[in-house]
């Protein structure tokens, strides 16, 4: 009985990944435009660093390369993290746009399966896109990764996905609470994360209130630890505290966000918000 139930849910889990794969394929032109947009954004940051010396900021070549690597790692990670966040956060909005929200919510599957399926699809897609952009950066910039500890960077990267999914699920609650304004609020959350998480600067430069909020963002630890591993060659052992913090944040954020989602679903059913028009 349990095995049958697990098989049923796994089948549905795969169904969400398969559906997203089909959607990405069908919307290939949109996806190509977004990929280009992301690539151009990251390249702009890279060339900004390259142009610092010509703008009169006299620095040694080594410092410039270090600054460039710092910014590019931030830009690349932000591209990945924001894309995964966006895909998860807009899971509900997308279904509302398409008009399938009622059909999906009426299906005899656990909401956990629905959310995890969407998260898995977002992760696979995010990694694929970030990999394309990362390869482009390696080809276009002479990045000094001679000190990089790839194993540690990968471990931090993997650990960071857990709290990231929690944040995404939290944000996907917003369109359930407010069909009209929920998706704009998701953009606002994404913007705040960009500001406070140290994507392009260490968070110590922020005013104290923003700095304190930044300490609570899992993206802050991800960016800082991955940079340390790639630029300074920080070892896996030394990265364990950051990995621990990320996993701890994930252990809190994921169950809390799923609980929040279930409460929001109950509210949406009470108020009649599970409709394509809301």
């Amino acid at each position, binding site marked *: 009985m349990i095995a049958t139930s697990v098989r*049923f849910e796994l*089948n*549905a889990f*795969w*169904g*969400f990944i*398969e*559906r997203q794969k*089909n*959607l990405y394929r*069908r*919307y290939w032109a949109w996806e190509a435009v977004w990929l280009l947009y992301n690539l151009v954004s990251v390249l702009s940051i890279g060339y900004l660093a390259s142009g610092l010396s010509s703008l009169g900021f006299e620095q040694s070549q080594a410092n410039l390369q270090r600054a460039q690597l710092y910014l590019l790692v931030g830009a690349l990670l932000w591209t990945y993290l924001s894309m995964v966040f966006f895909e998860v956060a807009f899971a509900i909005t997308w279904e509302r746009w*398409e*008009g*399938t*929200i*009622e*059909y*999906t*919510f*009426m*299906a*005899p*599957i*656990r909401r956990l399966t629905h959310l995890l399926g969407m998260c898995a699809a977002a992760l696979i897609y995010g990694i694929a896109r970030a990999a394309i952009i990362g390869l482009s950066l390696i080809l276009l910039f002479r990045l000094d990764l001679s000190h990089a500890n790839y194993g540690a960077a990968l471990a931090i990267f993997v650990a960071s996905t857990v709290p990231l999914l929690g944040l995404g699920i939290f944000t996907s609650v917003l369109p359930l609470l407010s069909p009209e304004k929920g998706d704009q609020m998701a953009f606002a959350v994404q913007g705040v994360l960009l500001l406070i998480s140290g994507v392009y600067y260490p968070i110590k430069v922020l005013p104290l209130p923003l700095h304190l909020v930044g300490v609570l963002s899992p993206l802050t630890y991800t960016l800082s630890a991955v940079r340390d591993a790639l630029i300074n060659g920080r070892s896996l052992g030394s990265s364990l505290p950051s990995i621990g913090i990320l996993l701890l944040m994930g252990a809190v954020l994921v169950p809390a966000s799923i609980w929040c989602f279930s409460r929001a679903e*109950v509210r949406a*059913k*009470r*108020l*009649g918000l*599970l409709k*394509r028009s809301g």
Partner: protein
Amino acid sequence: MAIQASEVNIRAVEVLDLSKRFGRTGRSRFPWRKGKSAKQALDRVSLRVDRAGITGILGANGSGKSTLIRILATLLTPDAGTATVFGYDAVTEAAAVRRHINRVSVEASFFKEMSPWENMLYAARLYGGGGEGTRARVEATLERLGLPLDTLDRPMKQLSRGQQQKVAIARSFLTSPSLLLMDEPTTGLDPRSKREVQELVTSIRRDRAATVLLCTHDLQEAEILCDRVIVIDRGRVLAEGTPAELIRHHAGVEGGTLEDAFMQLTGKRLLEDEEEKDE
């Protein structure tokens, strides 16, 4: 999902004193917000639907039909009363209810860029299917519905409304529901597509494949398709019976029609109400 032995003697649908109100009465909590006017969508509705056959819910726009269907589909929770599907409570046993139902709504709910096959594969996966043989089943179902097979891999948006509605019905067949909730499946279709969809619904009755709850404001459709009809207006059940019984008891004129019966019961014509805002 097939009906279990323990569910055989249980009614398909049983609704008792079901009420649902939208919006809030009184003043808003925030002074800058206007309070929404409340609307009583369902007002202590009680009804029973026996298994197999087609039961029509006949009412004008805004009468509460869709609200009732959405409660049975576990998409909406009632304020008061109970609704059960094959004995399972639509609120407290929603997962069990979902295993028995499927729904065809007035607008076909599809990913428009995806093909019928991709949409149906997604649906099959959500209902435990999607393995080997699914494509053959889908093709057989679509053929039965008179859809050319070359439509199977074209984006849904390229299909006509009638074709989309047929795919929606095919999708519901694919999951073998015991209760099929059809919410105005022919609204907005051209006469030919409407006829074809109606023939499909008739075939469900002939095959006794599922119990069908059909919401409609089309009196002719209700008369042709339904074994029993429940007339609903302003969230209340006004009458129920076979179309012939309703005409006999409520038409009020010799040789009357279901429209005459409806007018007598509700005091107005359906067309007048079609102008009303949908719930």
